[in-house]
């Protein structure tokens, strides 16, 4: 094919202040195709997109050339760029929740670009906005133009952002991690929509992503970035199939990593450690009028299950299905409206003070965000030893330190971490520290809420390995809460699928993830990006 490329980035270098961000970047985007740029955090993939849009922060100095419609974008004046943005180049961002102006209706926001670029009348622009919203899957009946962003969910808001970006049939669409903030089912829907727009309008698209599974499914061409330089580039199927470059191989392996895990076969013990019986949680309904209230919202509905000692159980489901509410109740941070939660046969809602302390000792937690899970003003020693508070006799200072050191050793950290503060550590190291804090009381159960989803793939595989080791050596039972099926596949014996507050499917991990029976479970499994499977399908399609 010899069609002229939509966009050609040549020898792009970028510095912000004295710091080099990008070096010698070359990217060509062909019309009607998707060119994916993948990399881990700090690779410069988003900066490449912002450079093409000329929306860089102050003090950024790009050099080289970005050819678009026979012009070099880097030499255009600001008014010339304004004429291109939103008209010939559209952009979709990562965070749909904050990407729309909260005080303007979605109709106004979609119509604005049309009116601005084409001088269309208000009613004309609104007609076209209506049509666009229909096209991105927001039909008039449920989504009239006068809706405000806060009345829409994250996935719906991302559709509005896409409608804005594609309002004037751009030649180039730049999508910067457009689905990272969404759950897998929504991710699939948004990606399908983007693909449809590319095919129908023949535009070129740059897809920025950290997820090789997504890229394998979407991309025609692929560029792999690391530390601001290109590692490998070429046709997506080719690059991902052959994995010639060491870094590409490393990324691919990390994203399908399965830890070596001695206890992979579920331990025989059937002594129930955690037992939930008909647990429910209602939230009072919103007030809808002066004296009327909506029906209470049932976040968790009649949930019953047991976790035996040493067993690793995954709890998967879409965002908003109630899995985090359930986790909070298990951790006794929130009281169930009905039913009972027992640990060691003690009802957590009725436990006495000392019973509660022993329950807390046996049950610890690891959260998603490695940055938010530590008080920034305390040292590692203080933070990791915090759960020791639940011991019946306060340990002495040296005893305390001894136990912290032991926990640090178990998670692969050294003693010089003791006096340092959380911000001195990387995301992966912080997650290790969070795990050290969780195991310091030798708990029987760790509830891990999306413990690896904020981490880069290479770090993610190391943390999964660590969880496997802890299960092998310390016989800790896990409840992994995740929307990411690869995590569930890698590190659980059993999987439960949650949907609209109910557990709809529960069984051995392999069975549930390969032969889902309920529609909710099937939707999750079908939507989950699967690198190896996708490459296989695309290779055979290409012949």
């Amino acid at each position, binding site marked *: 094919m010899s069609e002229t490329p939509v966009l050609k980035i040549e020898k792009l270098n970028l510095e912000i202040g004295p710091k080099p961000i990008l070096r010698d970047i070359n990217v060509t985007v062909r019309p009607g195709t998707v060119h994916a740029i993948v990399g881990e955090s700090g690779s410069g993939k988003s900066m490449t997109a912002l450079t093409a849009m000329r*929306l860089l922060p102050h003090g950024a100095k790009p050099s080289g050339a970005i050819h678009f419609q026979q012009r070099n974008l880097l030499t255009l004046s600001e008014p010339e760029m*304004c004429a291109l943005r939103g008209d010939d180049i559209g952009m979709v961002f990562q965070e749909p929740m904050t*990407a729309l*102006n909260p*005080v303007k209706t979605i109709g106004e*926001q979609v119509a604005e670009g049309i009116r*601005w670029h084409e001088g269309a009348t208000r009613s004309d622009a609104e007609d076209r906005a209506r049509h666009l919203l229909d096209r991105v899957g927001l039909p008039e009946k449920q989504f009239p133009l006068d809706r405000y962003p*806060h*009345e829409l969910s994250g996935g719906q808001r991302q559709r509005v952002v896409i409608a*804005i970006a594609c309002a004037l049939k751009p030649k180039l669409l730049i999508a910067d991690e457009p689905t990272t903030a969404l759950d897998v089912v929504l991710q699939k829907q948004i990606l399908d929509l983007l693909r449809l727009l590319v095919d129908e309008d023949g535009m070129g698209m740059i897809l920025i992503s950290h997820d090789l599974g997504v890229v394998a499914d979407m991309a025609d061409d692929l560029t792999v970035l690391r530390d601001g330089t290109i590692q490998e580039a070429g046709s997506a199927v080719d690059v991902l199939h052959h994995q010639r470059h060491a870094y590409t191989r490393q990324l691919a392996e990390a994203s399908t990593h399965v830890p070596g895990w001695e206890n992979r076969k579920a331990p025989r013990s059937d002594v129930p450690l955690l037992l939930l019986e008909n647990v429910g949680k209602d939230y009072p309904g919103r007030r809808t009028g002066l004296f009327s209230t909506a029906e209470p919202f049932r976040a968790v509905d009649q949930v019953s299950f047991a976790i035996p000692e040493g067993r690793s159980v995954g709890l998967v489901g879409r965002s908003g299905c109630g899995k985090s509410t359930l986790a909070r109740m298990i951790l006794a941070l929130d009281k169930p409206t009905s039913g009972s939660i027992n640990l060691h046969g003690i009802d957590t809602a009725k436990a006495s003070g000392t019973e509660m302390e022993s329950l807390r000792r046996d049950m610890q937690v690891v959260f998603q965000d490695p940055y938010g899970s530590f008080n920034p003003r305390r040292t590692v020693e203080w933070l990791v030893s915090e759960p020791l508070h639940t011991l019946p006799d306060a340990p002495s200072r040296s005893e305390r330190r001894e136990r912290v050191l032991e926990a640090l050793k178990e998670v692969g950290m050294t003693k010089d971490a003791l006096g340092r503060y959380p911000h001195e550590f990387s995301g992966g190291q912080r997650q290790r520290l969070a795990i050290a804090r969780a195991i310091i009381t030798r708990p029987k159960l760790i509830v891990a809420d999306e413990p690896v989803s904020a981490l880069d793939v290479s770090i993610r595989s190391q943390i999964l390995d660590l969880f496997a080791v802890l299960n092998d050596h310390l016989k800790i039972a896990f409840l992994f809460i995740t929307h990411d099926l690869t995590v569930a596949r890698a590190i659980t014996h059993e999987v439960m699928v949650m949907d609209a507050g109910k557990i709809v499917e529960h069984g051995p991990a392999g069975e549930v993830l390969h032969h889902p029976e309920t529609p909710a479970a099937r939707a999750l499994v079908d939507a989950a990006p699967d690198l190896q499977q996708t490459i296989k399908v695309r290779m055979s399609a290409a012949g």
Partner: protein
Amino acid sequence: MFAYVVRRLATVLTTMLAASLIVFAVLQIVPGDPARLMLGINATQDAVDNLREQLNLDDPLHVRYLTWLVDMVRGDFGNSYTYSVPVRELVAERIIVSVPLALLALTLSTIVAIPVGIFTASRHGTATDTATMAATQFGIAIPNFWFALLLVYVFAITLRWVPAGGFPGWHEGLWPALQSLLLPAIALALPQAAILSRITRSALLETLHEDYIRTARAKGLPARRVLWHHALRNAMIPVLTIMGLQFAFLLAGTIIIENVFYLPGLGRLVFQAIQQLDLIVVQSVVTLLVAAVIAVNFLVDLAYAWADPRLRSRTR
């Protein structure tokens, strides 16, 4: 929206009731015998008893409170002890000085501050921005009554452009009346304008960092249009809060400023009544002023709901 207004209105009424209870408690219960306080220690027991009867002080507290409250609502503010006229008349002739003064000051401060805030925010980091912000630092630090003295010295004593004080009354015509309100209004407005322009600037700069500003830029809108059409309305939300608070400051500020300029306004009335321990006047006028502040804050709440659709649909 209707439900929101009704619920806010209910809160406003409760707040007003609570405030009136506080005023009543401070002036009627704390001093022990209000009649003795008003007449002074040298008064004869007869005089005290007389006044006690006049004020119905022998009634139980709750009866006194309720009577006072019902009378207030009906528009009967009682009789001034020192002036021997209905408080209502006193208030009526003073309110036409104080309210125009506060409004004039608020208008002056707003029409200066908001453009200055927008201007400096759009030129963030330039020398103009830095110089203007340094000037506002001084504006905030200047006590308004000192600035008032300075204005009197320059414009009234030295240049003789405007009168140094007093108020001719509205019957003398609009211009002479406005002339005598001009200096006090400027004195009141200066520090408020300095604060408001800084708030406007920082709220705008903060808003300009939001994600939706980037979305608007990606639509191809030039920076100026993004500022006016997307950032400004969001930035107005904190600005409105400050304007609501400023009204309270301005009302309180009139107590001092009206003293500097010998203006016969509410502030001066309440101040003199306090000095003469005319508790009936104090009680009614303070309650009125507090009610005015609460009412203005209610209007600010409504303006919020107008500016922010999220509030309109939220019911709490």
